[in-house]
């Protein structure tokens, strides 16, 4: 919330908050325009998810999961993936529970776990090349460290793959390590997979729920906002076995009851269009990631030329950057804030470029580990990236 205010200034090139400034695909906008004309779609629909939407989701995800998914019992439609995280945590987590959160983490996990009365237990991704990271794949969990975090109180682990902010795409082997621990300790897995379609060449998104023994203990979360570049539609979903999803449905019926009808109908229609071409490279699920890969590469090059060290993400639309190489001295800034917070504020004020400090995504113990990194979002139109290019190319000239 802090940083969105600062970056609302139009003179600042905003690569901070994770929202696209590219247009959603035209057929998505058209479907919404069509539903505006259908009167009954202005009234309440089924609480747990508009019938045509849950049907479409079940078809798409049956293909992806490789198993039968019942649209009425195995799916809940929520107000964004954010709402899915909330429903899952409120449904399944309570006082006395511990929940493992991998750092850096999407910032809402910690407060949501706390709001449910549980204790967050953090484990950091560590850079295996001793701090010299060129790729998100360099960031890994220490297996022994991870195993130590599990105990009889551990109710769940929150997994985010592809990962925000680092862009890591967990490999099958890495997922297996987590799965083995979940099975051994009878733990749930809350799998935030909102960036599931955004994986770049040489990488494959694997759903932990497809690993043996995991479907029955995993809630998989997805997002229309990230899938179709419509973050403002605020539609997401939870998919899992009925005996878990039914508790999320109870939370949902006691919190907001139903999601907006016209948006769900338009989303359903968009999904049908792409479902029919899931074997075709033009399917938006694949074409968006191709579009973003070139933006990723362009962003990385610009950052390197400015003397910064980007960590090339294997997925997602964020890139973290090591800014310590610039040696910007901010010790005179009289605040107890971590370096990256100070750096971003300085960058916004003096370079008119915004990003998000990585310590925003960490628990208190690891802030020191991550305070030399900031996060850029690259799902931006060419003119935004052009403006960023100008700033980055002039960067060194101004600091002299």
């Amino acid at each position, binding site marked *: *919330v802090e940083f*969105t205010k600062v970056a609302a200034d139009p003179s600042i090139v905003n690569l901070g*908050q994770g*929202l696209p*400034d590219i*247009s*959603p695909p035209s057929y998505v*906008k058209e479907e*919404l*325009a069509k539903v*505006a004309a259908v*009167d*009954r779609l*202005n*009234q*309440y*629909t*089924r*609480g747990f998810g508009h019938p045509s939407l849950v049907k479409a989701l079940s078809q798409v995800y049956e293909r992806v999961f490789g198993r039968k998914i019942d649209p009425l019992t195995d799916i809940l439609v929520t*107000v*964004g993936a*954010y*709402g899915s995280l*909330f429903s899952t945590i*409120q*449904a*399944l*987590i*309570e006082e006395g529970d511990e929940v493992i959160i991998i750092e850096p983490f999407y910032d*809402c996990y910690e*407060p*949501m776990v706390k*709001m*449910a009365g549980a204790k967050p237990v953090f484990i950091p991704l560590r850079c295996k090349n001793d701090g010299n990271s060129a790729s998100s794949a360099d960031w890994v969990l220490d297996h022994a460290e991870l195993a130590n975090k599990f105990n009889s109180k551990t109710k769940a682990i929150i997994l985010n793959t592809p990962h925000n902010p680092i862009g890591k795409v967990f490999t099958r082997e890495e997922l297996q390590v987590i799965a083995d621990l979940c*099975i051994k300790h*009878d733990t749930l897995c809350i799998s935030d997979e909102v960036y599931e379609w955004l994986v770049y060449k040489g990488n494959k998104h694997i759903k932990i729920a497809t690993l*043996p*023994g995991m479907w*029955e203990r995993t809630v998989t979360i997805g997002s229309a906002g990230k899938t179709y*570049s*419509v*973050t*403002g*539609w*605020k539609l997401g979903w939870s998919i899992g*076995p009925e*005996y878990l999803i039914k*508790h999320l449905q*109870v939370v949902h*019926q*006691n*919190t*907001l*009851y*139903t*999601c*907006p*009808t*016209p*948006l769900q109908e338009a989303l359903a229609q968009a999904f049908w269009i792409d479902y029919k071409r899931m074997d075709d490279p033009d399917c938006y699920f694949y074409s968006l990631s191709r579009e973003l890969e070139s933006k990723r590469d362009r962003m990385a090059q610009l950052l390197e030329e400015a003397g910064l060290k980007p960590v090339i993400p294997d997925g997602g639309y964020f890139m973290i950057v090591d800014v310590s190489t610039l040696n910007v001295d901010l010790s005179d800034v009289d605040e107890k804030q971590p370096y990256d917070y100070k750096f971003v504020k300085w960058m916004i004020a003096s370079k008119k470029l915004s990003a998000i400090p990585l310590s925003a995504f960490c628990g208190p113990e690891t802030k020191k580990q991550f305070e030399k990194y900031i996060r850029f979002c690259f799902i931006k139109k060419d003119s935004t990236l052009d403006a960023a290019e100008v700033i980055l190319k002039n960067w060194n000239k101004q600091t002299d």
Partner: protein
Amino acid sequence: LKASDSLSFLLSLQAEMSRPVQARRLEGIDKNIWVEFVKLAATYSKVNLGQGFPDFPAPDFVTEAFTRALSGGNHMLHQYTRGFGHPPLVKVLAQFYEKLLGRDLDPMTNVMVTVGAYQALFCCFQALVDEGDEVIIIEPFFDCYEPMVKMAGGTPVFVPLRLNPPKDGKLMSSANWQLDPAELASKFNERTKAIVLNSPNNPLGKVFSRGELGLIAELCVKHDVLCISDEVYEWLVYDGKQHIRMASMQGMWDRTVIIGSAGKTFSVTGWKVGWAVGPDRLLQHLRTVHQNSVYHCATIAQEAMAEGFQRELMLYGKPESYFVQLPKELQQKRDWLVQSLDAVGMKPIVPEGTYFLVADISQFKSDVPDVPNSDEPYDYRFAKWMVKNKGLAAIPLSAFYSEAHKNNHTNFIRFCFAKEEATLKAANDILQKWKQEKTSS
């Protein structure tokens, strides 16, 4: 793999979690009348006067605003807006409520947009109610209040509206349902954190008078209690009655959260846009809950709603105002349904507001035999029988009572009359035919 590893591995393949999975906060809140009755209506009803939504179209100026927003070429309307409410919408809501309450409001701190009034209620209970707190709920009540209080760890304390039957054979009115002042006062104690007020009231249609509100306000001030004021039907008042806002009563602004709904105001229940209005000292806590539960509401719906409100602000009090036209239209429908029910022997309680009316079905009981020791209240069985056998959907009044009091009023069902003339006529046809069958048998 060792042999024992293989075995447990194989066993684990199909195993659900063996430890209890759900959180204790879900205890006792898993049943929901709407899930059941909406399904029944969808399966069996030919005429649906059950769930509260209009079957007539939303007003043109609202759907046009939606279309304009979409065709406007600003594709950023498909992206996140301000979490606590889209700036144009909170601005016009603040302007509107400034007018209605006669006080200055800051759109950024005194207004918050939510996913329907439902989510505003959720934020109130989560933000303001804690374990050990008591919350007074007036029966009959919109059913979500009770589970929401429980989910927040609070204890619901019920106080009934009691029927003072009218004299000389007049039709019952929602005004005949009143709180007993002494009984109400007895419900307040040092553990009382809040009282939920719903005026105009769903399901009865009661519009609380200034005197009645004053009674509640005095007790709130005396016991330092908050008021969660659900005013979603604020524009739907009939017979020249006035909706009085609790927040405008003496000593109440500082302790009241007003809840409103675009769905009810503009006949677009499916857009799920609602709001909370109140002092910053209360709203700040609602914002905390909101940013940790949904964070943002859909942008485009808020944009269109802002335009809708801007139009109404300009036309406020004028005959073309939707807030003037809608209640006029609905009053006619109310009168039509009242007449229709009265003619067949179902005794309607004439509502002063909302688009619901409750009717006494005692004269139709012979069709649905009583089952002694049934765990289902009579009116539930009646309503289910009616939708399956007559194709007419309505909601049993006991759905709006706490578990302990479900058997207090089992001869009433609730009808929604926000329906096209054709729908109401079709309902009348079913009722007439039914009555004829009874008299001829």
